């Protein structure tokens, strides 16, 4: 307590020193006066009296000094002094200060912003108890109901299992009709995940049966938005897809299932489900062996690994469907933890981006180190003078240290707002489909880490020259005016520059590869003509529309739309290209009845290929006559090749299906889940065959189709005013959206590479400029001896180029080692593409030569007379 109080007073004393100083002087003077008075009384002469008094006092100045030390905290006082001095010296060299602070701040900000997002989307634990035991089970990306049933019943490695599928539902009943993203889930799902509703209950096993399932659980968001957060909504009836259903539960905020990537064939963006219905499999779903439409989630028995579980499930699979494994076109049976399933989707791009940022931060640190060393060298003379005037070595090191810390702290202060902005910017430009990204906030732990790194750099490299200079060779430095300095630091700086260039090259190569892939994807064949096509989505729930009525509606709508002014043709399709894979059917041909192909099915109207501009390679399109009994289908090129290998034109061949389906046409491939995705075999059938509740309408116009949206909507309204229309977009936009993620990666990587290159060129400029300044004298002599200005210029530029070349050589090796990590992100570009490597290295050297040119010009302008006279 006593000590605390005293320390506090001393801290205070540090601030009010001037006033206290005069008071102390007064008090001591009074003391001397009184002593002198007494001495006079004892009969001394005035001079002697005063002298005796001073003697008795014992050194006025040393008393004052020790009084001062007592009064304040001397260390604190020095710190203030050093800090003031640091700011002053920063103001004196604004260029250095700006570059150092900016590069550190940007480095810190970029790392923190990106890591904050990575942390939120990849590293944070799933909000379920014991998430390590949660796994998704799938065969080639999905599962069928019969497989699920067998696994659930027989697998001893699984504790619990649930089936789910994402759907969209029309929600109505005393409210505006709305299309709500939703999921059908097994009753066991909630218990399996370990989540509980905030109000009400979840489904019972009884409700998970066909005909008993008129219940619905809603999400917190929907509850607050549509029902005003009123708990009395429990038990209320709403109309879901035209059927009255009772709300029985409300999930807590933040509950998100399915998350997206755990869904079969997830391509994103997928809006999170806000409503859950019991799975309640209907008859045909229960028995359909080819319907790979569902997702399966399970909780492993304690102590069981995914590998063990996969082994057991494979054995079950071999027992019940031995032929299935041979027909696999994908990864076959997989058992993955939920975390892997979710993060795999985004892991590679984000991890690579993070690597890029880390390299950028490293470069920033190297650059600052470089600047600090350069400044340290410049100040050798100043430091030498101070040492010879009696400054303690520790005191000087401490002062330089303070300057470094001030520098790092300034960067930190700048970095925090930049980070906040950066996070917002990243969220804004991030491609859709990264789960949880919207809730990313500044991660203080990362910020602390990045700050620590910056501080460490500043300390380490701010102090190294201080230690060296403050050493015994101070006199040497003084003698030469700090000019002809050689030694460890003049070797360290070029080494740092080489490292900087090497790191930059790795980034430049990586970003060039990504950019090249992006261009390749953007120019890859679409298989359709995206210009002048307007699309929107619509759904006709089964409760109001049986298949027959739905087909009639679709035929009517497309016929009506085709007659709108400006419209060339109109069509409907179950799912548009680039918006996700369709339902899968396992089918065989009559030519090879035992070889099953996982076919994706699209329902279309006759004008579909014309409207989208998809080329018919053989055979014919559908006609309205096909909307009847005759079983016809059109296949894409991939399906034709895979199902009838060796048969160039399979038109007229039959697919094994109830009664046999005849192939009447073959069309070009279009990509379902992205321009860079693998093309799957597709089967086109008339809507009469297969009419999903939700489908898309597409209209081709002669000119810009955006203005047609209102007309098409009103045609829909004329037929049924209660059905919500969603996803109105021009096809061009859908194409752009599908490559948004790649563009995002390429742009971001490009930014980091540019940032790195900029820093590296600043660094090389600094080193060359410094060496020119050091060698002014030598240059002068050489010129006096007859060297031409060109010689001097070339000499300096070559030095810059040599540094860059060394960096490039090192960087090329590094890039060769690193780029294979990029492989999964590349498209039609090899990870070791020589052209990219060569061009990047050349760019680097060019930048270095450019950066070296300015100091080179200065060197060439040296006037030998002035220079030698200066001596």
């Amino acid at each position, binding site marked *: 307590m006593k000590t605390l*109080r*005293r320390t506090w007073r001393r801290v205070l004393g540090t601030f009010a020193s001037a006033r206290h100083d005069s008071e102390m002087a007064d008090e001591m003077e009074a003391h001397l006066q*009184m002593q002198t008075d007494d001495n006079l009384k004892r009969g001394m002469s005035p001079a002697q009296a005063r002298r005796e008094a001073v003697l008795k006092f*014992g050194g006025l100045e040393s*008393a004052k000094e020790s*009084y001062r030390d007592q*009064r304040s905290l001397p260390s604190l006082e020095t710190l203030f002094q050093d800090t003031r001095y640091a700011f002053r010296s920063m103001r004196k060299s604004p260029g250095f200060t700006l570059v150092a602070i900016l590069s550190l701040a940007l480095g810190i900000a970029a790392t923190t912003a990106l890591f904050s997002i990575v942390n939120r989307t990849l590293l944070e634990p799933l909000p379920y108890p014991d998430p390590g035991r949660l796994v998704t089970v799938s065969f080639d990306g999905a599962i069928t109901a019969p497989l699920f049933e067998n696994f659930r019943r027989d697998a001893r490695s699984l504790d619990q299992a649930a089936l789910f599928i994402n759907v969209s539902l029309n929600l109505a009943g005393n409210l505006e009709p709305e299309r709500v993203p939703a999921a059908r889930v097994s009753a066991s799902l909630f218990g399996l995940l370990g989540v509980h509703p905030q109000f009400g209950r979840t489904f019972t096993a009884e409700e998970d049966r066909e005909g008993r399932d008129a219940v619905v659980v809603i999400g917190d968001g929907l509850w607050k938005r549509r029902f005003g957060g009123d708990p009395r909504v429990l038990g209320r009836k709403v109309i879901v897809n035209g059927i009255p259903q009772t709300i029985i539960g409300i999930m807590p905020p933040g509950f998100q299932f399915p998350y997206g990537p755990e869904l079969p064939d997830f391509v994103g963006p997928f809006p999170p489900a806000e409503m859950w219905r019991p799975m309640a499999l209907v008859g045909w779903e229960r028995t359909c062996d080819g319907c790979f439409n569902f997702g399966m989630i399970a909780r492993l028995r304690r102590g069981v690994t995914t590998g063990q579980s996969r082994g057991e499930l494979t054995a079950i699979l071999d027992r019940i469907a031995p032929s299935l494994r041979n027909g696999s076109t994908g990864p076959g049976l997989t058992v993955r933890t939920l975390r892997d399933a979710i993060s795999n989707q985004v892991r590679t791009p984000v991890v690579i981006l993070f690597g890029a940022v880390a390299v950028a931060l490293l470069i920033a640190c190297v650059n600052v180190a470089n600047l600090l060393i350069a400044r340290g060298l410049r100040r050798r003379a100043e430091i030498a003078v101070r040492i010879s005037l009696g400054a303690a070595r520790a005191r000087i090191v401490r002062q330089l240290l303070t300057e470094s810390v001030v520098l790092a702290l300034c960067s930190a202060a700048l970095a925090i707002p930049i980070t906040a902005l950066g996070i917002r910017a990243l969220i804004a430009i991030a491609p859709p489909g990264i789960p949880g990204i919207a809730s990313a906030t500044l991660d203080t732990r990362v910020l602390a880490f990045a700050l620590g790194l910056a501080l460490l750099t500043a300390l380490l490299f701010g102090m190294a020259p201080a230690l060296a200079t403050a050493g015994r060779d101070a006199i040497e430095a003084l003698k030469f005016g700090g000019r002809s300095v050689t030694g460890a630091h003049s070797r360290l700086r070029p080494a740092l520059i080489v490292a900087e260039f090497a790191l930059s090259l790795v980034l430049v190569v990586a970003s060039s590869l990504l950019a090249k892939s992006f261009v390749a994807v953007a120019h890859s064949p679409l298989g359709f003509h995206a210009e002048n096509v307007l699309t929107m989505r619509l759904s006709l729930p089964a409760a109001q529309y049986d298949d027959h009525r739905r087909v009639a509606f679709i035929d009517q709508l497309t016929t009506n739309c085709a007659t709108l002014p400006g419209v060339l043709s109109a069509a409907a399709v179950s799912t548009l290209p680039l918006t996700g894979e369709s339902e899968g059917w396992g089918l065989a041909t009559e030519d090879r009845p035992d070889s099953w192909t996982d076919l994706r099915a699209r329902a279309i109207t006759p004008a579909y290929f014309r409207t989208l501009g998809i080329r018919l390679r053989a055979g014919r399109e559908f006609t309205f006559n096909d909307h009847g009994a005759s079983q016809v289908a059109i296949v894409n090129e991939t399906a034709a090749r895979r199902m009838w290998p060796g048969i160039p034109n399979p038109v007229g061949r039959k697919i094994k299906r109830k009664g046999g389906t005849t192939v009447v046409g073959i069309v070009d491939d279009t990509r379902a889940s992205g321009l860079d995705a693998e093309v799957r075999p597709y089967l086109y059938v008339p809507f009469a065959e297969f009419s999903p509740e939700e489908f898309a309408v597409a209209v081709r116009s002669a000119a810009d189709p955006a203005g047609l949206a209102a007309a098409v909507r009103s045609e829909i309204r004329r037929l049924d005013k209660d059905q919500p229309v969603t996803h109105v977009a021009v096809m061009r936009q859908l194409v752009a959206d599908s490559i948004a993620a790649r563009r995002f990666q390429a742009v971001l990587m490009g930014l980091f590479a540019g940032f790195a290159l900029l820093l590296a060129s600043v660094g090389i400029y600094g080193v060359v400029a410094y060496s020119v300044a050091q060698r002014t004298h030598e240059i002068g002599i050489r010129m006096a001896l007859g060297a031409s200005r060109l010689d001097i210029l070339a000499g300096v530029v070559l030095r810059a180029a040599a540094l860059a070349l060394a960096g490039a050589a090192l960087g090329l090796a590094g890039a060769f080692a690193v780029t294979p990590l990029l492989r999964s992100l590349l498209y039609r570009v090899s990870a070791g593409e020589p052209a990219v490597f060569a061009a990047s290295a050349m760019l680097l050297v060019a930048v270095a030569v450019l950066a070296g040119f300015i100091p080179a010009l200065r060197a060439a302008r040296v006037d030998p007379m002035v220079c030698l006279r200066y001596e």
Partner: protein
Amino acid sequence: MREKNEVWQGTLALMVLKTLETMGPQHGYGIARRIEQTSDNLLSINHGTLYPVLLKLEQEGSIRPEWGVSDNQRKAKFYHLTKTGRHLLASETRQWRQANEIVARFFALPGGAS
């Protein structure tokens, strides 16, 4: 060196406190004179060393300074003993006596006081 100084300071602080207790408020010069007189001039201190001690005591809250006028009409800083100071003095005195007593017992041992 440093330690010795601290011991000395501690002792000096105790003397200052005791002086202020017996004499009432006193300025630095008065305290120095009194200490010298009390010790029969056996203890001769540099008056300058007194001030850091006074400052330390003030910072701890044991004494409180106040500007006043001395007997011979000089403006001087007078130090008052505070309540904290009295407590401190009492406890320090007790400790000092105890230590004294212990050392004295050692000297009282046969052959100890030679």
